[in-house]
């Protein structure tokens, strides 16, 4: 498996990145760890005449934990997230989810930005970011803009990021309450058959807020507001769980693939969500 020939750029600053993107338009793509893009190039399913390697562009590898928000640079890897003790304290769901992505080698190379910006419905971080109500910072020739994760995904590999823009950082409100990232997969290294991100707040036995997003059950990640709402005001009892699952099932739209037919995926999505809610609630 040999990719087609391409020109390689390794700019040292974002201005240069943007000018190459401007010059080559659709023919240029940025790359962080490359672990989604390079296999696609080798299979010749992605044609990238101009490849821009972001690794020398500074300022995208930091994890900043503020009083209310957490800012994570786009080049932070999954293994950086796993190893960051302070981050695991304030947003443990990031570590829990990262450990379920791919395998150790891939986590060393795979970045948060790449996982998010690629728009692959199989990636785990997009749904998680929607659950956490993250905001993505993208920069283009016209400067920076912020796009809510919940508005970012339009279709498989189609996002609100314009061709000339680069995703540079993710800002997450410090999560509150209990969390869970629950994922069913066939083996390590596989995408999810179904995965659920849940962040839930318990106030005196009542759920006061709940955010739920599902992964690989539609052509985009699915933030299910109605599923979260179904839990709010309840004691997260069986009826509430049923209501949340029913609401979520109304929002997802899985397709048949080697992981199974639609009926199976819907069923597993429900089971996984129930388990995620139960675990998150037990931690809330």
């Amino acid at each position, binding site marked *: 498996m040999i990719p087609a020939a391409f020109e390689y750029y390794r700019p040292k600053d974002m201005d240069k990145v943007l000018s190459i993107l401007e010059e080559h338009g659709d023919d240029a793509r940025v790359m962080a760890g490359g672990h989604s893009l390079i*296999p696609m190039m080798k299979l010749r399913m992605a044609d990238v005449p101009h490849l821009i390697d972001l690794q020398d562009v500074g300022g995208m590898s930091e994890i900043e934990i503020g009083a209310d928000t957490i800012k994570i640079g786009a080049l932070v890897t999954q293994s950086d997230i796993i190893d960051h003790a302070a981050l695991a304290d304030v947003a443990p769901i990031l570590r829990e989810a990262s450990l379920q992505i791919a395998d150790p080698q891939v986590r060393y190379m795979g970045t948060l930005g790449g996982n998010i910006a690629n728009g692959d419905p199989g990636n785990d971080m997009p749904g998680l970011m929607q659950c956490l109500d993250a905001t993505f910072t993208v920069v283009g020739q016209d400067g920076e803009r912020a796009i809510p994760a919940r508005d970012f995904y339009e279709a498989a590999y189609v996002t609100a990021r314009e061709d000339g823009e680069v995703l540079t950082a993710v800002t997450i409100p410090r999560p509150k309450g209990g969390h869970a990232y629950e994922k069913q997969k066939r083996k390590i290294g596989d995408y999810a058959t179904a995965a659920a991100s849940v962040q839930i707040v318990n106030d005196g036995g009542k759920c006061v807020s709940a955010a739920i997003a599902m992964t690989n059950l539609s052509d985009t990640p699915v933030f299910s507001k109605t599923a979260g709402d179904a839990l709010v005001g309840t004691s997260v009892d069986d009826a509430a769980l049923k209501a949340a699952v029913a609401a979520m099932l109304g929002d997802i739209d899985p397709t048949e693939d080697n992981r199974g037919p639609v009926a199976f995926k819907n069923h597993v999505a429900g089971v996984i969500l129930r388990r995620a809610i139960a675990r998150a609630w037990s931690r809330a």
Partner: protein
Amino acid sequence: MSKKKHVTLNVNGKTEEFLAEPRELLIYTLRERLNITGPHIGCETSHCGACTVTIDGKSVKSCTMFAVQAEGAEITTIEGIGGPDNLHPLQEAFKEHHGLQCGYCTPGMITRATKLLEEIPNPTEAEIRFGMAGNLCRCTGYQNIVKSIQAAAAQMSAAKEAAE
């Protein structure tokens, strides 16, 4: 044909400089340009780990990296881990505990294990199985690989304690 790039790598302690097409995958640089044939190609889609090398302290699947990306990097392959006169405890342990059969996954397996034992010097069985899950083996069923890594960890810990 795209423009060739100048690449400098430090591989197993030796500086290597060459001109390469950007699409040259690091695994081919090592295997064909530098004749370092320990790392192997198994799947080409970053699932099997036969091509695992250590790059600037990270375990990396070298079939999923272009040589130009590794510009300036320090790379260690199985050949840099230990040789006839200075076998690494993992190399000894794999021999001792039948941690290999056809040998094709072994260089990647051992290379990854050196890093795993840096991350977790005394791993549990579950930590080994989880930490080695990026390396596929078709022959051993992993049981003796786990055993080999446990044995090397014990040996390395004992050696470290003795040195302290």
